[in-house]
């Protein structure tokens, strides 16, 4: 940072940060502290008794399911999204394909929550348009073995719907950073396509790919409204367990459990985001360097 014009200008610059800092403190710092303090105290005294919840099989199953859901949709999203992004990146820079795909992904990556859940209920629900068409026109009953849309398989399908476009958005810049000259250099030196990907393209893109996949994982882990609108039985994943702890009219006084579960999610997401930040740093190093 340059120190020229320090003093007044520096103060002004700092003042410009104030609104951002206020938002971060209000909506990020305070709530996190509230959750952590709440989970680690009992009647206002520091206590680890809340953490015994992590020994409850129901809670452990919810974390296992959440992790499985996040990992599988992140894996599907990362692979499919990367392929789409590759197709876009190798196309014409101002082509129709690129413009259509990037703007569609921009919309679809944010098309989550209740809207998405109802879109799937209307198309693939019990009396959804596609379900009825498949049954009447092709004789295929998609729910022959039970209605899976409102359970874990349904969540995987619906989550994938917003994971793929998000992957395209976050992975495309890394692919754009790949110079055609590197490919040409490999070929000039007698390298095959396989060798190019094995020794040049792959290693260069790996950190960006891994970082994007981790972002997808965190995205799925923390998604709530989509699952809340879709799943009404059993609260299979952690965000739904938190809802149950806060709103149940059958099991009362479990707000503490909600905070403990939230703490568990904060820990998982923080770990993932730290790993993502480390990978991102490696990526930006060569992307910035190659931009010259």
């Amino acid at each position, binding site marked *: 940072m340059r120190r020229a014009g320090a003093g007044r200008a520096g103060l002004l610059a700092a003042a410009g940060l104030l609104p951002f800092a206020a938002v971060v403190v*209000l*909506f*990020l710092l*305070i*709530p*996190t502290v*509230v*959750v952590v303090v709440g989970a680690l105290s009992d009647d206002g005294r520091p206590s680890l008794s809340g953490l015994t919840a992590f020994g*409850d*099989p*129901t809670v452990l*199953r*919810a974390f296992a399911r959440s992790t499985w859901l996040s990992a599988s949709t992140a894996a599907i999203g990362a692979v499919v999204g990367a392929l789409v992004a590759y197709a876009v990146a190798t196309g014409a820079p101002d082509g129709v394909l690129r413009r259509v795909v990037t703007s569609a992904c921009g919309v679809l990556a944010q098309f*989550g*929550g*209740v809207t998405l859940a109802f879109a799937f209920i209307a198309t693939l*629900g*019990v*009396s959804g348009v596609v379900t009825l068409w498949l049954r009447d026109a092709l004789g295929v009953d998609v*729910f*022959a*073995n*039970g*209605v899976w849309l*409102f*359970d*874990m398989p349904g969540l995987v399908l619906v989550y994938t719907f*917003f994971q793929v476009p998000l992957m395209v958005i976050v992975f495309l810049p890394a692919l754009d950073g790949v110079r055609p000259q590197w490919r040409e250099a490999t070929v000039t030196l007698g390298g095959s396509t396989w060798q190019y990907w094995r020794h040049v393209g792959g290693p260069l893109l790996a950190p960006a790919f891994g970082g994007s996949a981790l972002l997808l994982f*965190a*995205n799925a*882990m*923390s*998604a*709530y*409204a*989509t699952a809340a609108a879709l*799943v*009404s*039985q*059993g*609260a*299979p994943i952690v*965000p739904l367990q*938190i809802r*149950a702890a806060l*709103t*149940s*009219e*059958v*099991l*009362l*006084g479990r707000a503490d459990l*909600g*905070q403990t579960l*939230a703490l568990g*999610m*904060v820990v998982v*997401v923080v770990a993932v985001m730290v790993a993502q930040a480390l990978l991102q740093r490696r990526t930006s190093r060569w992307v910035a360097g190659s931009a010259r």
Partner: protein
Amino acid sequence: MRRSTLRAAAALGAGAVLLATAACAPPEREQDAASSDAAAATSAEDLGGMDALVEAAEAEGELNVIALPPDWANYGAIIEAFEAEYDITVNSDQPDAASQDEIDTAKRLAGGDRAPDVFDLGQAVALANTDMFAPYQVATWDTIPDAFKEPTGLWVNDYGGNMSIGYDSAKVPAPTAVADLLEPEYRGAVALNGDPTQAGAAFAGVVMASLGSGGSADDLAPGVELFRQLKAAGNFLPVDPTPATIASGQTPVVIDWDYLNAAQTAQLPTWEVVVPAGAVTASYYHQAINADAPHPAAARLWQEFLFSDEGQNLWLAGGARPVRAEAMVEAGTIDEEAWSALPAVEGEPVLLTPEQSDAGAQQLASTWAQAVS
């Protein structure tokens, strides 16, 4: 919207901030002498009779109710009738809120003019919060069976119903017992109104399933097992049933209170309701006055109205069983047409004690999620 954990945490934090603000004492409302008399009255006689109660209530001019959906047990008509009879405006707050929300709102708004005057609560929430209620005995107190009221009048059961199976007779055969639902004709058809670890109605649905499968009020395991089998057979439909899903045919079989199921026949004429024989479980709601009611006289007049023949018949017209039904049948004051339209019941209904409810809820907390997902 999908929310990040941190944003979800922000919501929790904002809630905490709200609570903290609420904890700072709000400006005390001014109470005139009549109101403070009413706040201590445990019957209309304490205020000098019904006329004096009406006068005090109309002087207050307003009544705050909460969590009373207009299409639930006929509450829309009940509120209209009360407003027509007395010069009092009813402010209906958060009609779709749950029982716990009623208590939370009363605590948050305590001391203010907008706090709820009266509660209509599920059993668990009512029994956990009796220190917030004001004891009051309505004029018809003696005709309410002892099992349905707290001896001093802290709470009184107001209306209830039996667990039932509602079904679209155009799509599925008529079930007579809970176990019938395991038949292949019910594939992908059986919905339960909510998650039984969260919603009272769904909890009672599992109790019904238990009673119908050899279980008892003390052991809900057979009920959970029945739903596990329904799930394994592909018959269980994990959709939250609503009037919309029933009308559109997405949920051809719904396990819910008979008064909620019966209300669906109006929009879907082929919708039938059956209370399975030998698996009858009933539950009544708990009516109570907020001890810190901003309109104490109106709150008491509302009770008098609800437990009068007129109020009880209005609930009955909505398909619910009013608590004074038997006394009214004897006295000949019941709405005969509505009374005979209720689904037939074979056998004595099983009512869970608070201890049994607690134990059952704990049992479901550790077994339900695994059974159905």
